[in-house]
């Protein structure tokens, strides 16, 4: 356990007045408050730290204890055990948007003020203090899936805070897409509605295709002779191989669109995007003497 310099956390020096401490705290709180930094874990952690520091330095009584015992927290263990009266002083709230946000005050804090200091749910006047939740807490979760997992709509069971939640993952969901599951967040307070569960999908591409929404893209190598004379090529799609006719005189980087061979459209059952194939013509190298001779003859015909 490390000594925590709460003065440093709030960016004030040890001679700062209570008004200066409060001003510094308010300024940092405005910067790192979870409501103005949604989905920002770093800001959330910083906010907790600031809150913890202000819990100590914002109250003269606590600040004195900290100044007295802070540097040598081991001695403060004993003090902390007898310091139950500090209980109920703390008002750190769990914020909507900071799920699982049990206020993790450092062990260091407990060593000085005792674990009972973590107790109270209200009464910390410095931070408005009141528990203001009505609707249950919104929760956030992230689900990583492979691209091939979202080819079809399927059920998934997630375990969140020890509770199993069965969700439907619609086919065609996008990378980074968030869905809201109403009422699957924290329990409402005083009869208020339950919070929502937000799931962000991290879709990893485990295929040879590139995806943009419901269209898939693929570059296919085409040998020079097929490009010049035309012919057939076999193309892999997500549902098996298809044979494509290649027109004589196909240019490099030309594209062919295969309707309905792309990715499922989000929440549009049985509807799919397109597969766009780009031909990349491979020019033969390491020619044999015979080949070189024939190419030279061809070149001659062009003159």
């Amino acid at each position: 356990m490390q000594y925590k310099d709460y003065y440093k956390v709030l960016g004030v020096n040890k001679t700062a007045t209570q008004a200066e401490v409060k001003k510094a705290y308010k300024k940092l709180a405005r910067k790192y408050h979870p409501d103005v930094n949604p989905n920002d874990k770093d800001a959330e952690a910083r906010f907790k730290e600031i809150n913890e520091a202000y819990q100590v330095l914002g109250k003269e009584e606590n600040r004195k204890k900290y100044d007295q015992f802070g540097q040598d927290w081991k001695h403060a263990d004993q003090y902390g055990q007898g310091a139950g009266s500090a209980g109920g002083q703390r008002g750190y709230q769990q914020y909507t948007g900071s799920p699982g946000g049990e206020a993790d005050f450092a062990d260091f804090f407990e060593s000085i003020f005792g674990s009972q200091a973590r107790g109270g749910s209200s009464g910390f006047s410095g931070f408005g203090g009141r528990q203001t939740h009505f609707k249950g807490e919104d929760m956030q979760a992230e689900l990583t899936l492979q691209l091939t997992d979202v080819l079809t709509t399927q059920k998934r069971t997630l375990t969140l805070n020890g509770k199993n939640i069965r969700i439907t993952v619609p086919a065609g969901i996008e990378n980074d897409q968030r869905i809201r599951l109403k009422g699957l967040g924290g329990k409402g307070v005083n009869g208020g509605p339950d919070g929502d569960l937000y799931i962000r999908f991290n879709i990893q591409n485990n295929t040879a295709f590139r995806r943009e929404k419901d269209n898939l893209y693929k570059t296919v190598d085409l040998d020079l002779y097929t490009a010049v004379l035309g012919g057939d090529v076999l193309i892999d799609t997500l549902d098996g191989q298809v044979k494509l006719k290649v027109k004589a005189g196909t240019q490099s980087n030309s594209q062919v669109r295969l309707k309905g061979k792309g990715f499922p459209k989000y929440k549009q059952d049985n509807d799919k995007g397109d597969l766009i194939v780009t031909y990349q013509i491979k020019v033969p190298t390491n020619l044999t003497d015979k080949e070189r001779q024939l190419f030279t003859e061809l070149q001659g015909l062009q003159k």
Partner: protein
Amino acid sequence: MSINSQHSIEITTLCRHYQVEQAFFTQLNDIGLIETITIQDTLYVDESTIRRIDKIIRLYRELDINPEGIDVVLNLLKKIDDLEQRLSTAKNRLGLYEHD
């Protein structure tokens, strides 16, 4: 906005819960932060507004931001959210070319 008693909450209930005056909610309504509905002389808000009210109350109490300031904050947060979504879409599109 359509409203029915099943999905609405009386403002007086919220006043008790948040310990604020009714005038506070009237002010929020006046500057367009929330939409209140009057039914037979009783003020209500739709249940779906609660999350927004929760956030407004926190910003008001904990960061000392007045309702007009909260309006600016929420508009900017919305803008950031839109930009983040556009960034995410752009990143996904960029992925198309990174593999070439």
